[in-house]
Every structure is written in C-alpha cells, then in structure tokens.
C-alpha cells in the first residue's frame, strides 16, 4: 500500500469544504432576495468536486498499472469504492439542491441549508473512504450533525419532534460507535483497519464482537437500519422535502460503504455474514410490513428507504466471501440514490400533496411527472430495465454466491410485499382527481432523475464497468 501525503488527492473533499464555508459566508452578507448567489456558489463547488472526483477516479489507473489502492494520510483510501461514493454523493447533493430550489428559495435559512448539505455530503464521503476508526468517528459526527440541523430547519411541531428523536438516537449511536472504536483499538493495538485485521485475529471473540457490534450500531443509525431506524420515518415526514431527500440518500451511501469496509477486516471467529444477513432480513421485513399501512407519501417513502437498507446490507454481509459483493453494493447504491431522489423530486414538485390520495389526477394533469413517479416506484420495486433492478440482480447474485441463498429468498418475498405499497401510490396518481399545483425546478429534477434511473438500468454495462471487479482497498 502506497502512502501519499498530497492534499491534492483530497481535492473533491476540499472543494466541498471550501464550498460550504463560502456558501455560508456569502449567505450571511447577501440580502434575502439574492440568496441565489449562495446557491450558485454551492452548485459550483459541487461541480468542481464532481470534475475532480471524475478525474481522480481510480478505475483506469489501478487496472493498468500501479497498486490497486492508495491511502492518503494513512486514513483515507482512494479505491474504486471511494471513487464511486464521491461521484454518487456529489450527484445526489446536486439533485437534492435541484429538487429543493422551489422549496428553499427565499426562505430565512437558504444558504445555511446549502452549507449543511455540502458538509453532510463531505461527511458521508469521509465515512465511506476512511480505514481508520478515529477518522470514522469524526466522519460519523460530520455526517450526522448536519442531518440533525436539516431536520429541525422547518419550524413545525413534527419537525421539532423528529429532530429531537434523530438527535437523541444519533447521540446514543455516536457514543456506541466511540465505545466500540475504543474497545477494538484497545484489543488490536491500533486504530487503522490494517492493525485491526492483524490484531483482532488472536483476540477474544467476545470482546471483538462487542466492539464491532457497537461500531456497526453507529453505522446502522447513519444508514437507517434495524434496530436504529426509528428516526427515519419521523424525520422523512417531519422535515422539509429537500432535507428528507438528503437524509434518506446521502448518509446511507457513506454508512454502508463504511460498514462493508469494517466487516471486511473483522476476524472470522464470529459468523459476521450470518449476523449482518439477519440484520438485513430484519430491516427489510420490518420496514416493508410497516410501509404497508402508510397513507402519507413521505412516511411511506421513509419506510421504503429503510427497507432498501435491508437489501443494501446483503452485499455487506457477504463482503468477505465473494468478490462480487463490493461491485454489487456500489451498483445498488448508485441506482438507489438516483431512484430515491427521483421519488422525492416528485414529492417536491407537488408541494401541496401529503397523503397518497392527494396525488389523484396527476397522470391527467402532469403526465410527465406521473411517468417519473411510475419509473421511480417501479425501480424501487426492482422492475427491469431500471436502476434498482440492476442493483437487485447484482446484490441477489452476490448474496447467493456468498452462501446466503436463504437471504435471497427472503429478499425476493420482501420485494413482493413492497410491490403492494408502491403500487398503491402509483394507482392513486392515475385516478381522476384535482391535483395540487406543481413547482417548476422540482419538476425538472424529477424528469432528470427518471432519465437517470433508466440510463443506469439500460447503460448497465457502463455502470458495472465503473464499479469494476473491485475489492476493497
């Protein structure tokens, strides 16, 4: 492994950080009507991050020559997983801003929201890229504190309750993560994952289990997986649409890649594939059953995102046993991000609609928006040729290949259950009725997202080529 100390290797992250600071400063000095300048700064920073991340993408380089992965400052891995995470997070934040413009423009805390989105995205990337427990703990805070603030940004009783719930659960998970990190580094004699891999092999299994479970608990909170998922539906329902879109997408990307990196180095004394597999099964089953009864579109999507974490935990479970796991995880994350954001863009485009029945008449009045909703919901079900189908195909294959065929059957049955509630929403959109007025930017974001969903599914060859045959660096 090559050690590099050039800050330029972290250019995408620096762009986000500088962008967040500049957005905040600019926002403080700009009058309320000209906050679009702050938005412009944020978008510029994101575009710069996207370009630098694309240029630094390790795919071509690592395959042709040189080591498979580099580590910067001994704690930040530059491998395919990091490269894909950077691109997905940056694209996701861009889409969040796109779908949130109508909602945020002219509000009292517009520039602060953009700054928080950038910081949360930065936290997610660091979370995904680090291979050091201490940096993981810092990244956890960087990824979760903006989320607390974003949830509480709307001054409504629901948002206040959701923010408190998120904060309390997050504080608890953060403490658990720190505790776990302490235990693991104590027994392994170091905080870097390289040290964990060697140091934990001979350590008592019980101590390793306690430490690793505590760290995983923190990551499960961040991803919104069972048993630390309770904040997700509340926050999704209570927060503003842009904040909800962000918190159900970006932190998950970071947390799940981080979980894969951690599980990858844990010793085999305890059956981690089985344990994570059980967590995956519990997450998807519980969330799907809970989603069945929902009548509020936001809450339904909130539970839906929890159930998707269940499928996303499948490749994490088999990350040690098959080389197909990491590419599958990355493909699913990319597909999930664009699909979920498209669904939220539809929500943002019809700001007045809360319950499922409020979407009646959408197909008649706004056929394109209804088409975008249809594409995103069918993708969440996993219908080909959409993005999540590609994810499900690769994830199911990886899980089966990794020896968890039972989990694949559970996931297939869960997919069937999920069809029921996604379809319930879609059917309402095609019923006659008087739909609420729509918003322009979010409408465009929904269409762009829907095109993205189809592009990922149809351009599957390109997407899988990007995620490569990647093993974690």
């Amino acid at each position, binding site marked *: 492994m090559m050690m590099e100390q050039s800050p330029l290797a972290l250019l995408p992250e620096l762009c986000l950080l500088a962008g967040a600071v500049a957005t905040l400063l600019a926002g403080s000095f700009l009058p309320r009507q000209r906050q679009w300048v702050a938005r412009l700064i944020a978008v510029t920073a994101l575009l710069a991050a996207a370009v630098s991340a694309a240029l630094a993408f390790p795919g071509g380089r690592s395959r042709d020559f040189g080591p498979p992965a580099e580590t910067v400052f001994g704690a930040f891995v530059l491998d395919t997983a990091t490269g894909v995470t950077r691109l997905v997070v940056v694209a996701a934040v861009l889409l969040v801003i796109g779908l949130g413009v109508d909602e945020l423009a002219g509000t009292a805390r517009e520039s602060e929201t953009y700054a928080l989105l950038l910081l949360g995205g930065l936290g997610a990337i660091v979370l995904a890229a680090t291979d050091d427990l201490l940096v993981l703990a810092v990244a956890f805070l960087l990824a979760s504190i903006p989320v607390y603030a974003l949830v509480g940004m709307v001054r409504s009783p629901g948002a206040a309750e959701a923010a408190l719930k998120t904060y309390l659960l997050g504080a608890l998970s953060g403490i658990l993560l720190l505790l776990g990190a302490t235990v693991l580094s104590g027994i392994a004699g170091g905080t870097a994952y390289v040290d964990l891999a060697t140091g934990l092999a001979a350590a008592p299994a019980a101590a390793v289990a306690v430490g690793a479970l505590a760290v995983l608990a923190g990551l499960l909170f961040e991803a919104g997986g069972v048993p630390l998922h309770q904040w997700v539906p509340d926050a999704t329902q209570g927060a503003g649409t842009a904040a909800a879109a962000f918190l159900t997408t970006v932190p998950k990307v970071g947390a799940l890649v981080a979980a894969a990196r951690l599980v990858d180095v844990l010793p085999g004394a305890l059956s981690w594939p089985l344990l994570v597999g059980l967590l995956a099964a519990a997450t998807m089953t519980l969330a799907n059953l809970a989603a069945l009864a929902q009548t509020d579109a936001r809450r339904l999507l909130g539970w839906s995102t929890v159930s998707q974490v269940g499928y996303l935990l499948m490749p994490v479970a088999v990350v040690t046993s098959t080389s197909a796991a990491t590419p599958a995880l990355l493909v699913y994350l990319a597909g999930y991000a664009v699909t979920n954001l498209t669904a939220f863009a539809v929500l943002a485009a019809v700001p007045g609609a809360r319950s499922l029945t409020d979407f009646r008449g959408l197909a008649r009045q706004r056929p394109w928006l209804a088409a975008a909703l249809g594409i995103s919901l069918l993708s969440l079900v996993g219908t080909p*040729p959409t993005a999540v189908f590609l994810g499900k*195909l690769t994830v199911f294959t990886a899980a089966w290949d990794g020896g968890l065929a039972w989990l694949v*059957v559970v996931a297939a049955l869960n997919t*069937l259950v999920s*069809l*029921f509630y996604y379809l319930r929403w879609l059917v309402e959109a095609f019923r006659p009725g008087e739909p609420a007025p729509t918003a322009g930017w979010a409408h465009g974001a929904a269409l762009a997202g829907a095109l993205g969903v189809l592009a990922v599914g149809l351009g599957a060859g390109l997407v899988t080529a990007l995620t490569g045959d990647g093993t974690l660096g």
Partner: protein
Amino acid sequence: MLSSIIFLPLVAAALLAVLRVPDRVARWTWIAVTTADLALVGVLIARYETPADGGLAFEERARWIPSVNSSWHVGVDGLSVPLLALTAVVFCACAVYGLREDRRPRQHAALFLALQTTCLGLFAAQDLIVFFLFFDLSIVGMYAAIAGWGHGREAGRSALQFFLYTFLGSLALLLGFIGLYLAADPHTFDIPELIAAAPLQDHPVAGGFVLAALLVGLAVKTPTIPFHTWLPPAHTDASAIGSAVLAAVLLKMGTYGFVRIAMPALPDAWRGAAWVVLAVGIASVLYGALVALAQTDVKRMIAYTSINHMGYVVMAVGAAGLLGGGTAARELAVTGAVTQMVSHGLLTGALFLLAGVLHDRTGSYAMRDYGGLARTAPLWSGLFAVAAFGSLGIPAFSGFIAEFQVFAGSIGTTAWAAIALPGILITAALFLRALQLLVTGLPGGRSISFSDVRAVEAVPVTGLLLLSLAIGVLPWLLLDLITPASAVLVDLVGR
C-alpha cells in the same frame, strides 16, 4: 432484422405517447404499425431456414452487461418463430378491433404497442436477463391494460391481484435464473451457452431447487393449478382486447419458458420432475374443464378453458421428460405442445373478442341473459360457433392437430396421460352448452334488438379463425417449422 421487429412497436408507442395526435390518427397508426410488423415477421418466416445442428437463425448479439456475461442476444428457432408469428397476428387483430375503442385511444394504442414489443422480445430472447426484462415488463403493461381499460367494477382489484401473483412468479423465475448463472462456469446468463453447458447436470439437489423456482415462476404465468386463481378475475375485468392478448400471447410465455429454458438447461432435473409436471398438466386439463362447465359467465368460462388448454401443453412437456417411451413419441408430444400454444392463441383470441362484442352491446356476460342470438345476430353466432367448435377440437381446425399430437405423443410415452382424455369430452359439452344457451332458441332477454357484429369486429375474428383453419387443413405449414426444433429439444432433454 429481429431487433427491428421487436422495437418497431415500441418506437411507435413512444411517439404516440409523446405526440398529441388526434384519436383517429392514433387508431390508424396502431393498425399500420402492427400490420407492418406482421409483414416483417412474414418476411422473416419466408427467409427462415431451419438452422443446422440446433442453432439459431437471425441471431443478433450486442454488449450489454459484460460484467455478468449478459448481452442483448436474440435469435429464433422452430420453437420461437411460430410464437413470434402468433404475437404479430394477435396484436394486429386487436389493433383492428381497437378501432372502436373510445376511451383514451391514443394512450391505449401506445400501451398495446409497447406490450407487443415485450411479447416479441420475450419470444426472441436468448439471454436470461433479456427474457426476464420482457417477462416483467409484460406484467407491468398488462396491469396497466386491466387497471386502465378494464370494465369491471373490480378492475383495479383484479389488476392488482394479477400483478402481485405474476410478480411473485417472476421473482421465483429470477431466483432460478440466478441459480443457473451461478452454477455455470464461467458464470453466464446466455441461454445457448447454458443449454450447451447444462450446468447442474451432476447436482441433483441444487438442480432440483433451481428447477422448482423456474417451475413455480412459469406455472404462475401459464397458469396451471394451483397457481391459476389470478386468471378468471383478470379476464373478467379486462377489456376484450386485453383478454385476447392476455390469453393468446401472455400465457404462452410460461409454457415457452419450459421449452426454451427449463427443459434444455436442466435436463436431469426435468426428467426427475417429469411425473410431477405431467400430473399437474393432467390435473389442469380436468380441473379447468370441470370448472369451466360450471360457469354461467361466458368470459369466465373461456378463461377456465384456457387453463384446460394450457394443461395439454404442460402435460405434453411433462411427457417429453419421461424416457420410457420412444423418441418419436416424445418429439410428437413437444410438437403438439408448441402447436397447441399457437392454436390456443388463435382460437381463444377469437373467442375473447367475440365475448367482448356481447359486453359492448349489453354490458353483460351472463349466458342466461341471452338466447336465440342466431336470429338477431346470425354473423356473431356463426363466428362464435366456428370458434367454439374449433376450440373443442373438431378436425379441420388447428385445435384438433394440436390435441391429437399432444395425446398421441403423451399416451405413446405413458398410458397415464389417457386420464386427461375426458377433458376433451367435458370441453365439448361446455361449448355445446354455451352455444345452446347463447345462440339457439327464441330471442329473449338481452338478445332482442342485439345488433350483429360490425366489420371492425368481424374482420379480426375471421382472420384468426381462417388461420386456425389453415393450420387445420395444411398442418405441415406449421409442423415443418416446429418438428426439427422439437427433435433437438428431445435430444437435449435426453442427455
């Protein structure tokens, strides 16, 4: 050429969905595109020569997802050409019948054109992911057709039941496909490669599980008992065209999956499960016929005869897995099965379109509401009588050719297949009863002032019946296509 046949309807569908053309233009575009596609399929058949050593004709392959060895791979052989032709014919007939559709005709035409692409694509697919893609999309399309243009009060509910049920089937199918993919070395989703490798040949347990997943997936779609419960409500609440497409084309996807994937890729497991398949087929034949006999609603009756007719196909492919009989008998059974798929498509398509005329005039499918239609609607009665006799297997129609081969082949393999023979008798009884209730006697109830079929209704039905007659009179036209492919298939199953 094959890809253009598959995607021509989809392109037209996209244009119709986007451009706000007048209804009249949309209706005629639909007819024009389906006719053009039918003509292209005609050219394909004219240029088709049975490929040597069980290969594929008109093969096309393009990169798609190389990391999992899945590609856009299409091609045809004697098993798929008849079904491609059937698809093009049925959709063309439905387009003509659809001239009378006055509920959102533009979207209606676009939906059915898109559905046609999924059907054509499925029958040409030579890659499991491509197959699955079209299998799933056909479910979505049919769901939209039932929910959006169905006419029952419960249309939404029936459509949901259809979606959930067949989606369960497609998930089982996906699991089976993943199993096949992982078993092959190197991993691949390519159907010819999987057939050549027969990857689970020496793994009876894994092979059994994978085949079980495939069987459940395909049996739901076919449907066989006990997975048939979605079919009658779906048919009752679908429009005439929706029912015709569902019965004539979509049901074939299940049985086509047997002969295209399950049998040749898992020969060992298939032979092991052959008795089960045979038994399920016989049970479907008898059960479908008996329940159809008890129906008072003409559309439900036709729906249950579909279960009966598809039961013959399942019975025949089951018999083809029993090595006891001679090769010739098993080949005959497979040829009969494929012939039956085509025959059922033509005849049941015609029957559902005719049932649609009843609903169009009076809003009722109840047989007791009618009587004496021969006097008020002689043309309708004549067409219905021909379709009914054809469907019950009278010689000179395709149904006879198909069922004769199915029984000759199956009984030639195992005498147990003779248990299904009463199915023919019951089917004859129920069609005669339906004719008696609807057509004969004095006009009463809703038959009075019933206006006879119009040209747009009579033409497509007549076309379908004439094709069935042509196959019945000149069976070699079809059998020359199928026979070499069934010989190859029987060889593969016997490995």
